[in-house]
């Protein structure tokens, strides 16, 4: 359950960057080939955000498409998970995109 450790880092990053402002929304980019489970992030976020400026913030997770090229047939494909083989059946995939794990932006409250 490494998502807990990653979520602790996520909340620390938010706290460092929001200058004490209350955070209303957090946007996270997660590649489909990254070794993390979005639902586990959602579960951990609520726990980790408690008592920080991100408490109660909405967590939006944007899943990024995976892209890979097969070392055997040279075909490009779009695997939906790190376990998917190439359409030709081979597992010799080189990942080109989809391993991202990034805090994209946060929305903070503003005084009128």
């Amino acid at each position, binding site marked *: 359950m490494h998502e807990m450790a990653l979520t602790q880092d996520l909340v620390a990053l938010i706290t460092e960057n929001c200058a004490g402002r209350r955070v209303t929304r957090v946007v996270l980019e997660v590649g489909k080939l990254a070794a993390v489970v979005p639902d586990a992030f959602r579960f951990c976020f609520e726990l980790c955000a408690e008592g920080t400026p991100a408490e109660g913030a909405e967590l939006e997770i944007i899943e990024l498409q995976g892209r890979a090229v097969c070392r055997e047939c040279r075909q490009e494909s779009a695997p939906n998970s790190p376990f998917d083989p190439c359409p030709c059946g081979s597992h010799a995939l080189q990942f080109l995109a989809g391993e991202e794990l990034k805090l994209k932006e946060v929305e*903070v409250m503003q005084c009128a």
Partner: protein
Amino acid sequence: MCVTCGCDDPNALPMAHTHGPKTHTVRLEHALLSKNQRLADQNRAWLAARSCVAFNLMGSPGAGKTALLEAIVRRAPELAISVIEGDQATERDAERIRQAGCRAIQINTGTGCHLDARSVAHGLTTLAPEQGSRIVLENVGNLVCPALFDLGEAARIVVLSVTEGDDKPLKYPHMFRACDALVLNKIDLLPYVDFNVERALGYARDLNPQLLAFSVSATRAEGLEPLCAWLGSVARPRESA
């Protein structure tokens, strides 16, 4: 401070100013693993300053990571290995390694399922390895989480035992993609289990064509020479991910 929006206006009582429906978006584009990566790079620099080389040793619980280390320490004292042991609980593994004849310290991760660069930084300071020595960071037994966390190692090793099944690389692809070397352990048990070595290595090399492979029996001290020679030859830290 205003308790509603968190602004630092010293006169701002909760009711003294209002909060618009508007929010402000802060673009960050910050990699989540960057903090661990920064600390791992610091570990790498700390090790380089002492001409030390570290290995990140991973594998399932029971694959034989500690037994392999005991066998290596006994076989190749010239490698001057010292060890940081990572387990959820107990000092048992560090104790085993010390009895095999080398310095070892234990990190207990508690509920944590992997070593991270911060815990290893503390561990390295406590271990205080000798100039020019080799350090093995034995990770928590787990084929998933440790693959994501750079510790500052020069090379990554995964131990797979023949009692685990030859399709493990397909089930845990991240680990086999992330490693530089695969140690196939417990080969003395091959006659008794349904494990196809060629198939296992084929799956692993599909994922990672550069993967080195060594076949050993740690408990019988078989096949250790090529592995020890490689451990002694790794000189340069791997580039950070």
